[in-house]
């Protein structure tokens, strides 16, 4: 044995990257054994490469980070501000948070975001459903139940983020969507027959022709690795599932992907690659784009989806905008067809049924 070799216990594994420190973890993406410092380095470096290769940012841009207080957005805020400093991106970073009005869930996670504002030194703006739409998610769920609530929340949140971004006068919004999210979305779109969305959902930058472009720096980052990074770095985040989400259809895809990751970790990236490679005629890609007549937001129909849903809520027609017949006039016919579903009929005003 050479004189300067450190004495190792039999069975001690060395980090495969630096070969000096003891391996502390197995990388979920590659199953390599790696020490903490090298893990931080490779995690941050991969994201830096994604930002460079996809030209996500330009120097001098104002960027709003969609911040929910959860692990993805917390790690995103931490890593982006770190990389911004280290590599001189020259960006002005902000935290943008949406308050959907979910008691016991959102009010707790907002506390986390307020702490992040202080910890990372990034100015915070909060926009709320109550201010924008006059409804909180609690009130919406009370009216429509637990089956389609995620549709409402998703549509409202998208617009809320854009409104908040406009108030902050930012050039882009960065969200914490990770590789698992995008893989789930690809599968979901196949299962639900949405070929148009399927062609768009793997783009790392979306909405370039809309009000505010959005990007997903974590597109190739595994959820497990984000959790590991947050855990080892002891980052402050809020880790509970939304209380209204157990029935979401996405759950099927999520379970499947978890099982898949166990057999073949690279499958998550393979799904994203398949999504990028699907041969979809360019004519199906872009829906015709106009503006909503009611609020002026970007929309492919006469009214934007948020306005349609809001109209439904305000008129006591919770199924308006949900399901196949999404028009404003066909909702009445749809409700009559259903037998035994008195819930939706109950909330109609007398004299409002059309023939």
């Amino acid at each position, binding site marked *: 044995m050479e004189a300067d070799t450190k004495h190792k216990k039999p069975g001690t594994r060395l980090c495969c990257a630096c070969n000096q420190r003891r391996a502390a973890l197995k990388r979920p993406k590659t199953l390599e054994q790696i020490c903490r410092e090298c893990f931080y380095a490779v995690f941050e470096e991969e994201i830096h490469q994604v930002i460079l290769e996809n030209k996500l940012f330009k120097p001098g841009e104002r960027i709003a980070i969609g911040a929910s207080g959860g692990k993805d957005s917390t790690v995103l805020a931490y890593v982006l501000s770190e990389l911004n400093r280290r590599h001189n991106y020259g960006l002005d970073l902000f935290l943008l948070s949406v308050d959907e009005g979910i008691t016991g869930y959102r009010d707790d996670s907002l506390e986390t975001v307020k702490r992040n504002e202080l910890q990372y030194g990034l100015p915070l703006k909060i926009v709320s459903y109550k201010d924008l739409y006059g409804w909180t998610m609690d009130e919406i769920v009370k009216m429509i139940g637990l089956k389609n609530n995620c549709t409402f929340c998703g549509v409202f949140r998208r617009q809320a983020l854009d409104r908040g971004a406009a108030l902050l006068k930012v050039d882009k919004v960065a969200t914490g969507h990770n590789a698992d999210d995008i893989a789930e979305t*690809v*599968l979901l*779109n*196949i*299962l*639900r*027959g*949405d*070929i148009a969305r*399927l062609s768009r959902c793997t783009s790392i930058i979306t909405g370039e022709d809309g009000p505010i472009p959005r990007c997903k720096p974590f597109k190739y980052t595994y959820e497990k690795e984000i959790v590991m990074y947050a855990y080892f770095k002891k980052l402050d985040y809020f880790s509970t599932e939304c209380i209204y989400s157990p029935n979401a259809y996405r759950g*099927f895809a999520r379970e*499947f992907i978890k*099982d*898949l990751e166990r*057999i*073949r970790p*690279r*499958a998550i*990236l*393979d*799904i994203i*690659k*398949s*999504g*990028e*490679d*699907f*041969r*979809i*005629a360019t004519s*199906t890609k872009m829906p015709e784009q106009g503006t909503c007549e009611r609020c002026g937001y970007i929309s492919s129909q006469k009214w934007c989806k948020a306005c349609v849903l809001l109209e439904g809520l305000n008129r*006591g027609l919770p199924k308006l905008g949900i399901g196949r017949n999404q028009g404003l006039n066909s909702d009445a016919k749809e409700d*009559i067809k259903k*037998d*035994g579903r*008195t819930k939706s*009929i*109950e*909330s*109609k*005003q*007398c*004299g*409002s*049924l059309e023939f």
Partner: protein
Amino acid sequence: MACNSSTCNSSGCYKEYEEKDQNNSKTRVAVKGSSGRQNLCVKCKSSEPVCCGIGGEDSKFCKDCFKNNLYGKFKQAVTYNAMITPPDKVLVAFSGGPSSRVLLQFVHEMQYRAQKNYDASKDKSLPVFGVGVAFIDESSIHSFASQQTEKAIEDIRSIVSNLAPPLKELFVVPIESIFSPDGIDCKERLQKLLDALGDVTGKEDLLIHLRLLCLQKIASENGYTRVVLGTCTSRIACYVISATVKGQGYSLSADIQYVDSRWEIPVVLPLRDCPAQELNTLCSLDGLKIVEMLNCPCSGINGLVSSFVKVLQEENLSRECTIVRTAGKLTPFHFNRIPEIHDSNVPSATRRHHRRHGLKSNGSLSSESFCAICNSPLKNSNSPSRLKNESPQTSDLFVAACSSCQFQILPKDPSLMEQFVSLLPRAMVARAKHGDRGNVSSVREQIQDFLLSDDDDEV
């Protein structure tokens, strides 16, 4: 808001409709016991229904209508895609399972009717197509008792011989025969090849590719013009998900169409619109015998996808159809149609038939290269640069394979590549060498316009 008054008399009040609803459900309950209007076959409205299609309550059929409905889907797929025409000799791939049993039955019935028409016709202008049956014997890889295999093969022989007239030739071919015609050391070679693979899914998929190669070999050596597979909607749904999961999104659309002419002998899928559930039902209704023993459950990715799709089906019976419909919107490839018939020996009636169905090639140039292992079209950016320090033959194979085969089939260690190549069947190695050539029929399409034919009524 909602009407809370119990004595509301306004004409649009929902309570009116609620009562009507309740009345309807009452009558339905009463009707179920007797043979009222509600409990009849939805198609002929005269017989009592005995089974359900996948539409659930809305698709209750009597036995005859159910069978006709299923046969109709098969017939339409065949006719609309010109899968089987009079001069063809079709080779039906028979695994013994329900889908291939129904396939065999339907092909036979179609042939039988064509024979009757031929016998009755005066000018005998359209001959009856020929049918052969191929069973690939994979017992050398699984550890079945030889009696089981023999019994299974006996059963298959009797099934095929009972489907005459017209007579059908049966080929029982061991899968290892793909390696060499004389059969020397083939079993060991196959075992060595499979052992060289570390990935369970890779093994299963390689077997599928070998199976197809085997069918191609039987078809081309015996003058068949089509290979007919019993791939049903359910299997395609599983394939869509598993191909997505393996990173094969680009080539996915090539493998799920009605027609696949990449191969020397075009492969057709007439049961593409038939869900497995309906095929199973038909087998039990009609007492069609199934030889199940030789089908092993999949493990690895394929098994996981299979159980996933099953869970989705339980939640919603039409999920498989939606998956296949979505995937059907992906752009197919130029080889996903029957190649044009230019042989002047083919009767003009047939060629008119092809033109009528718009099956002329559009003269598109084929610049596809194909994976050496699985024959899937390669996206240009997929091929990595040549590995350094590799002999041309071995790095040929690596470059000529799709990313999925590179991962799950080819050996990880480059030094093992040469030995691996020596174990592969000749057809795969040849594909690797001729990487960019594409296939013969597409080359012909390019020069078609300049070939002079005897047929004058081409405009």
